[in-house]
């Protein structure tokens, strides 16, 4: 990793520091000189956008925690107190709540970008696995954060989601009671969720460090999927990508600000403005939009499979739909990384995207009539994509010829 270093300590103090803690050398190597393929498109700015979003969520979250009260009798009103009485509170709270949605929008784009350009393939399997781990941690964090305002959807989401764990044989019930801190969702649940909601973002930050470490060993993938061959294929990260990423972040802030200032509640559910009442079940319990595809899969299994009852079956498929992502690098065995050069993969990729959007829609639809049938079909297709289509494609498909280098493909584009 240190072969890119052009750092020579400029002063006596820097030299002294460099021999003891080479932090300036490290920063120069990894934040400034790091050679990055010069052909990265704007989909690649979402890495920086996500890092930015994590910081936004942590900062706004730390401020919110200064004013929030994790007690069932006070939580709902303390969030309103933040909105009404804390200086700038409405904006901070809205930024945090909308921020969760924007964070997930960005992470989905980041994941789907990786899927299209084959960023999970050797030698980036660990990088991908760490990314999936971050995604799982994000889901846990977002879910627990959603419980904190203690509205109807908060409390019922906590009830429904913790209930999932009860389906696990033998350890299910003890696990459920451990998660809830009792037999039902109540004050102990709220307290431990608050504690974990504060803890997990820092765990995410730690895994992000590993994620970036794993990125900086092989370096970035790029839209052609062709390895970097020479220094002509790359530019230093600074100023080229610092600038491009910052521009991407500013663009991303525009829809973000639109929601925060003009429709802060549009991504949430009105029922969450009703304080949680365990005696009254809402007509439809709907998770936040970013959980809907997986929620659809959970609900799609409404039949027993041999000795596995439908509840456990749903949990297995729900867990499997996320766990399967860990194995993606070994399910897609095609040697060609980028979807651009894979004529058949391209079609199936977009079909998978459409199917995923359909799952999102079905997760919010009531579990009745045609929606149930569609949920089963889309759930089947979700797994078929990973378990049948990708392994088969790798054998059947003839990829288009690859450019010999990034520079060649870039020049070809400029002159065509």
């Amino acid at each position, binding site marked *: 990793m240190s072969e890119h270093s052009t750092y020579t300590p400029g002063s006596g103090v820097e030299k002294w520091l460099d021999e003891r803690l080479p932090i300036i050398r490290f920063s120069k190597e990894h934040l400034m000189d790091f050679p990055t393929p010069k052909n990265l498109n704007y989909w690649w700015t979402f890495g920086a956008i996500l890092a930015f979003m994590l910081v936004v969520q942590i900062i706004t979250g730390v401020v919110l925690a200064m004013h929030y009260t994790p007690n069932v009798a006070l939580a709902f009103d303390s969030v309103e107190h933040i909105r009404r009485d804390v200086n700038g509170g409405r904006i901070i709270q809205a930024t945090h709540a909308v921020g969760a949605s924007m964070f997930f929008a960005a992470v989905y784009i980041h994941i789907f970008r990786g899927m299209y350009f084959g960023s999970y393939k050797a030698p980036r399997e660990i990088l991908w696995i760490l990314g999936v781990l971050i995604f799982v941690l994000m889901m846990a964090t977002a879910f627990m954060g959603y419980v904190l305002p203690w509205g109807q959807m908060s409390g019922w989401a906590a009830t429904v989601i913790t209930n999932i764990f009860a389906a696990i044989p033998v350890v299910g019930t003890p696990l459920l009671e451990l998660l809830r801190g009792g037999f039902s969702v109540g004050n102990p649940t709220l307290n431990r969720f608050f504690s974990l909601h504060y803890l997990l973002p820092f765990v995410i930050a730690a895994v992000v460090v590993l994620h970036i470490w794993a990125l900086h060993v092989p370096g970035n993938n790029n839209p052609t999927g062709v390895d970097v061959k020479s220094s002509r294929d790359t530019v230093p990260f600074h100023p080229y990508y610092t600038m491009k990423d910052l521009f991407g972040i500013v663009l991303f802030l525009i829809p973000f600000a639109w929601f925060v200032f003009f429709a802060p509640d549009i991504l949430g559910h009105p029922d969450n403005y009703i304080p949680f009442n365990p005696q009254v079940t809402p007509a439809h319990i709907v998770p936040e939009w970013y959980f809907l595809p997986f929620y659809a899969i959970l609900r799609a299994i409404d039949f027993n499979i041999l000795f596995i009852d439908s509840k456990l079956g749903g949990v297995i498929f729900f867990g499997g739909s996320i766990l399967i992502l860990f194995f993606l690098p070994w399910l897609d065995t095609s040697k060609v990384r980028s979807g651009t050069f894979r004529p058949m993969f391209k079609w199936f990729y977009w079909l998978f995207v459409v199917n995923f959007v359909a799952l999102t829609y079905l997760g919010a639809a009531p579990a009745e009539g045609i929606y149930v049938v569609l949920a089963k079909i889309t759930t089947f297709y979700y797994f078929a994509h990973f378990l049948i289509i990708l392994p088969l494609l790798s054998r059947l498909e003839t990829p288009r010829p690859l450019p010999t280098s990034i*520079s060649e493909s870039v020049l070809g584009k400029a002159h065509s």
Partner: protein
Amino acid sequence: MFNTKTIIAALAMVAASALAAPAAQAAGEAPHIEKQDWSFAGIFGTYDENQLQRGFQIFREVCSSCHGARLIAFRNLAEPGGPGFSEAQIKALAAEYEIADSTAEGGVRPGVPADRWPSPFATEQDARDANGGALPPDFSVLAKARGVTDAFPWWLTNYFTGYSEGGPDYIHALLTGYHDEAPEGFDLPEGKSYNDVFPGHAIGMAPPLMDEMIAYTPGEDGVEVPMTVDQYSKDVSAYMMWMAEPGLVARKETGFRVLLFLFLFAGLMWATKRRIWKGIEH
């Protein structure tokens, strides 16, 4: 830089991410709710002070005998972006109410602007007992706890217009949606009223408003506001929206400046980025 494919894909992403929440209620029987023309809708929306004052009058004279507003303090009524009462008016108003205070002599004292709006009932059980078992909901955030569901694909446009007035639209529709008699074949329980938009149609609240029920004072310009159920409903819905979102005006004003800044800043960043990348084939 941005080719057509990228733009189409980006739009598809936006549409996909928006394909979410409202689908939930899409299937259930959703009565049609007429959207109203609110002064506080849109980027430049602000509350109409006169309307909020009329709405407050209705809340005070009618609603507040059963509904509380526990998060609202008297002082809020004089704060910028609200009904615009003067400090003196608020002081006088607060003093008209008795506030339970265990540290005061006799357990009660006259209100001050810092006090919260007193609840009409001491406990939830008292409230239920006085209302045939139904609990009149607190008004503090009620306007945001209700909404309107648009059919697919029309709700997609809401993300681009920033439609956030579903609550007042619903409340207005509820207050104007009463029928003297339930339709043929509908089994209306004793003590309930029939309402078009209330879930299940049997609502515990009797029609609270009637034409000419509340006397509006004509403005200094002599313009008279119609004293109809429709107008009363609009005014009280607007007032409830203000209670739920008292900082709306300041939020939108800030938002306008923030967006303007972001657009300009993005332009400058774009120019800088192009300048830096000039001469690099990519």
